[in-house]
């Protein structure tokens, strides 16, 4: 540890990063520049500073030249700062006195910030100069030991959130699993089947959700949302608002009598508008908790002050119209955010007529129609006349890979379109003609390409081209889809009874607000941003807060589970010792805020 009046001896290490830096800037000129800076007593270059050899160079130089400050000019601090701080610590240098600065962004081929040789030299010189000056002025930030709460808050009860909760609960942590809706299970519960196994989605999900409900270490908070978060890793204080269910969960036995007797109907959120539910309802057969819930906005008593029929008929007296919103205060050591996605609303893509033409639906809506527990009990009936469609046309990349809306590839749309085509061909309407208009079929996953091939073998027609227009016959409500088959170079007009739009995944509503509350970053598409896209994919810019599932970006179920387990593991690593070292100012700020 260096004393205050001690001479500041700075070592500057310039990395070639192979050719990534050396190919875009004159390393010798940088070395010469660094050498003459005040306080610099040693300079060195390395082909790969991050390698074992490079690290040894730093350690040796510190010992030999009595260095007490390290400046590494290489890549993004998010990538390797921790590595070099550890190297410094090994030879007695406080982490505050090791700096990594990114000069590679100006030189690396393909970098958005790349500039020419001359400019790169200029920028790098300046950055090295400023950093050397700064590190000479820096003082050690005092750290203190903090006890951590052995508990975790998981926000979002979809498959990712449930998986992370179960992992942590099994490790012995107390888990608070918060879900905004009255049931956990998320979007996966509504998929009917999942690719590439064609397993029934609820069947493979329900054991997990049911266990999450029963696990002694998990406290399930449905109908609840996070209102405020304070504190720091190891000791977050979270304010949660639990909205009333108007049904006593302890008394309700889910016999469904109230649902049967309830006279008020509303479009069901769980059938994506394809069916109705009552004002009191159980979201779906595998809902957890498997209890009734009243939606006040569709309930006659709440809207008009009359009715209370459910209360009259409930044999267990579970209905409670007097329930009030409750505020809970939680203390947790870490937070996992798994708020998931929503389906892109394609009505702004006017040429496809969604919202105007009743027989244009989305893939999520199709999933609900195919589901044997869905609004049509698994019969595929088109909305306009409830007849079985003979010609079904699917349009890929709606709201994704489209510079007007979202540029990203939504990763799962090719596969779920194939899945629905297979279900229709195998189980629902084997004689239906299915056409899929696509830009590229993207099936990079285990067993996915085989799944695609099998779909082709079933007779599904694939057209390479993005339809430019869907037209409706106002009388028959039949549709015509105009598309250029770019393989044939011909314009084709397809007749379709049902058009299904394969829509992008977009971040769930409220993601940005929650991110602001947690002080974590979002990316340019509104998804939660990881600390580093390759090396720290589930950590965030805030220590102790982790992300997983589709809140981080579009992905399929296995990837969401992998991330959930990774996030749980990260939280475990952080909390495991029961105490952590934290900079004093963070702890102080946490106490006063």
């Amino acid at each position: 540890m260096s004393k205050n009046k001690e001479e500041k001896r700075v070592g500057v290490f310039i990395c070639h990063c192979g050719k990534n830096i050396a190919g875009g800037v004159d390393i010798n000129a940088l070395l010469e520049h660094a050498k003459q800076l005040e306080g610099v007593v040693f300079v060195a270059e390395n082909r790969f500073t991050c390698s074992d050899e490079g690290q040894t160079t730093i350690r040796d130089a510190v010992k030999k030249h009595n260095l007490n400050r390290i400046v590494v000019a290489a890549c993004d601090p998010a990538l390797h700062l921790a590595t070099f701080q550890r190297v410094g610590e090994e030879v007695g240098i406080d982490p505050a006195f090791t700096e990594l600065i990114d000069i590679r962004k100006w030189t690396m081929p393909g970098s958005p910030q790349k500039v020419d040789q001359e400019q790169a030299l200029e920028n790098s010189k300046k950055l090295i100069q400023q950093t050397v000056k700064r590190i000479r002025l820096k003082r050690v930030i005092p750290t203190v030991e903090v006890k951590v709460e052995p508990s975790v808050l998981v926000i979002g009860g979809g498959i990712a959130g449930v998986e992370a909760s179960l992992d942590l609960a099994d490790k012995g942590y107390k888990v608070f699993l918060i879900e905004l809706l009255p049931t956990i299970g998320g979007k996966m519960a509504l998929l009917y089947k999942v690719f590439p196994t064609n397993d029934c989605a609820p069947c493979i999900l329900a054991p997990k959700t049911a266990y999450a409900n029963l696990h002694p270490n998990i406290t399930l908070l449905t109908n609840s949302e996070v209102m405020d978060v304070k504190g720091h890793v190891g000791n977050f204080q979270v304010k949660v608002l639990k909205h009333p269910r108007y049904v006593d969960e302890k008394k309700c036995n889910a016999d469904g009598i109230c649902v049967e007797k309830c006279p008020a109907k509303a479009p069901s959120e769980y059938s994506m508008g394809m069916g109705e539910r009552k004002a009191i309802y159980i979201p779906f057969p595998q809902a957890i908790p498997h209890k009734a819930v009243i939606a006040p906005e569709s309930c006659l008593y709440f809207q008009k002050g009359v009715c209370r029929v459910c209360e009259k008929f409930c044999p267990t007296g579970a209905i409670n119209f007097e329930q009030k919103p409750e505020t809970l205060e939680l203390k947790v050591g870490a937070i996992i955010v798994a708020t998931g996605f929503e389906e892109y609303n394609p009505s702004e893509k006017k040429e496809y007529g969604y919202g105007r033409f009743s027989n244009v639906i989305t893939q999520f809506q199709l999933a609900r129609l195919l589901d044997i527990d869905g609004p049509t009990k698994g019969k595929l009936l088109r909305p306009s006349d409830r007849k079985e469609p003979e010609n079904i046309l699917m349009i890929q990349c709606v709201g994704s890979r489209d510079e007007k809306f979202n540029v990203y590839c939504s990763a799962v749309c090719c596969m779920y379109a194939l899945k629905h085509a297979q279900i229709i061909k195998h189980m629902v309407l084997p004689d239906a003609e299915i056409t899929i208009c696509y830009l590229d079929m993207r099936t990079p996953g285990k067993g996915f390409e085989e799944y695609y091939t099998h779909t082709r073998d079933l007779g599904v027609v694939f057209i390479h081209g993005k339809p430019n227009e869907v037209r409706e016959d106002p009388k028959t409500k039949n549709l015509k889809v105009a598309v250029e088959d770019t393989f044939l170079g011909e314009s084709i007009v397809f007749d379709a009874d049902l058009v299904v739009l394969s829509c992008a995944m977009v971040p769930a509503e409220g993601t940005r607000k929650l991110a602001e509350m947690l002080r974590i970053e979002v990316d340019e598409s509104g998804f939660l941003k990881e600390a580093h896209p390759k090396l720290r994919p589930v950590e965030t810019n805030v220590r102790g807060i982790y992300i997983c599932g589709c809140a981080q970006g579009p992905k399929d179920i296995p990837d969401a589970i992998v991330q959930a387990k990774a996030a749980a593991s990260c939280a475990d690593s952080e909390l495991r010792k029961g105490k952590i070292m934290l900079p004093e100012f963070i702890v102080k700020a946490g106490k006063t805020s």
Partner: protein
Amino acid sequence: MKEYALFLGCLIPARLPHIEAISIKVLDKFGIKTKDMIDASCCPDPVVMKSLDFNSWLAIAARNLSLAEETESDIVTLCSGCFSTLSKANHLLKYNAELKGEANKLLSEINRGFSGKINVKHVVEIIRDIGKETIERQVKKPLKQLKVASHPGCHLLRPSSILHVDDPNVPTIQDEIVSWVGAEPVNYALKMLCCGVGIKMVDPEANLLLLREKLANLKETEANCIVTPCPFCFMQFDMGQKEVSRKFGESYTFPVFYITELLGLALGFSPEEVGLHLHTTPVMEV
């Protein structure tokens, strides 16, 4: 009362003067005056001329705009093509200093200049802005027997980010006016399909195929006439029906109205004043 500079373009004065006549009369009924634009030239054409020589296209449009600027009145056009050229040019010249500079350099040779103080409107917009109540109050002969398929055409709506006339995918502007004069708007699948006239000079065959597709679709509906805000579309439907019928051995006889003709009839002008006797496809219903 507002006075507009009336930009006629080429087609209306040369081949469809009755559209000019009835449009002036209809606007006058609502207290909207028009004045001729002396020395106005071709707009010029928003497709061919613009593609062949953009700078000249812009300069000629700028000259036409400058004529209206001199009299400090907004322009009204009866033709969707003229509307497209003048609106787009006006927009480009107002918001792109470089283009404005180039155009003004050319205009300075004839002692003119573009300053950017007027707007360009299509007559359909003006009728819409007159409003439902005012128009309904003035209707003397509601056109109850008409089931009208409206053909919006291409250049009235796009590019919507500049023109802002109506939703470019789901336009309702003409249907609204149709219902104000007591007629019934009819929706149809190929409403947004081009009439075909734009490619007539390049590919006369494709031109007729497009028109036929549109007419065949109309025949499946209960529509008994067509209305359009564009003189080119008007001519295509009015004269082209005969050609399509002959060529394909089918029979299409939809009466075709320019939008102000429909208003003219409803406001009580006689068929002769409206100019129905000048149509190629006979207008029997009225």
